[in-house]
């Protein structure tokens, strides 16, 4: 596994959580995720990557953390409506993917608009039949979340 291409996404995630939420998450050990295995997350924000490679960046959360992040961003202590949660985590994954491009400038990449999938153990349609999904666990003061990245023909 070449961490060189994963590192920009980890750095971007740390930066975004620090700047937007004043959270300094701890990064766990990356592993190759089995796409058929249940992951246990409630909500994922997905950005597709196109251009000189195909891929995806996914941030997955338990719903409580997604709501808490939204409340922190909106400044509203009450549970946030779903519309705000979708807006928040969509924007977070958008910023992570866009910021990570700075560390991958040897490839000309384009990012899609975010999409959100909800439901315990929701299915994600991953690009690339055989490309490995690299998953990085994060732990924060508000709970655990996960960053997963696929970059066809670059990672793996």
């Amino acid at each position: 596994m070449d961490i060189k291409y994963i590192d920009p996404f980890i750095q971007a995630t740390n930066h975004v959580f620090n700047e937007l939420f004043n959270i300094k998450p701890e990064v766990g050990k990356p592993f190759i995720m089995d796409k058929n295995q249940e992951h246990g997350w409630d909500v994922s924000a997905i950005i597709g990557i196109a251009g000189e490679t195909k891929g995806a960046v996914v941030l997955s959360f338990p719903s409580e953390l997604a709501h808490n992040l939204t409340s922190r961003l909106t400044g509203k202590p009450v549970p946030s409506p779903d519309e705000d949660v979708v807006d928040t985590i969509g924007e977070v994954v958008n910023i992570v993917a866009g910021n990570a491009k700075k560390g991958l400038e040897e490839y000309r990449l384009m990012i899609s608009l975010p999409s959100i999938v909800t439901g315990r153990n929701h299915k994600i349609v991953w690009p690339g039949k055989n490309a490995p999904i690299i998953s990085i666990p994060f732990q924060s003061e508000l709970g655990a979340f996960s960053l997963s990245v696929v970059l066809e023909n670059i990672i793996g």
Partner: protein
Amino acid sequence: MRILVVDDSRIMRNIIKNTLMYLHQPDDEYLEAADGVEALDLLLKNQVDLVLLDWNMPKLNGLELVKKLRAMEQFQNLPIIMITSEAAKYNVIEAIKEGVNDYLVKPVSERGLLAKIKRVFPNL
């Protein structure tokens, strides 16, 4: 000053507007659009002094809007600051080439945004 904030995230538009409150310009007025089509419509109907523009949006993205605006005589000198997650140098260069006045990478800090606005409006 009338400022148009264009971003498909309502929460991000609010963050940008709240940040701008630090300028303490009591006469400032804000317009909002969630995509390039809405923004163009507002620009054609209102006198706007500054556009704060996201890149990745549905319908018409920020870069496509800049190209359209710079091709229209009445918008050739309209100040536009792009505020986007797109951090790659080739994106910055592309946006500047198409005519944005300045470029700011999200997440936006108060200091960063105000510095960019003061570069465009030195007398503020």
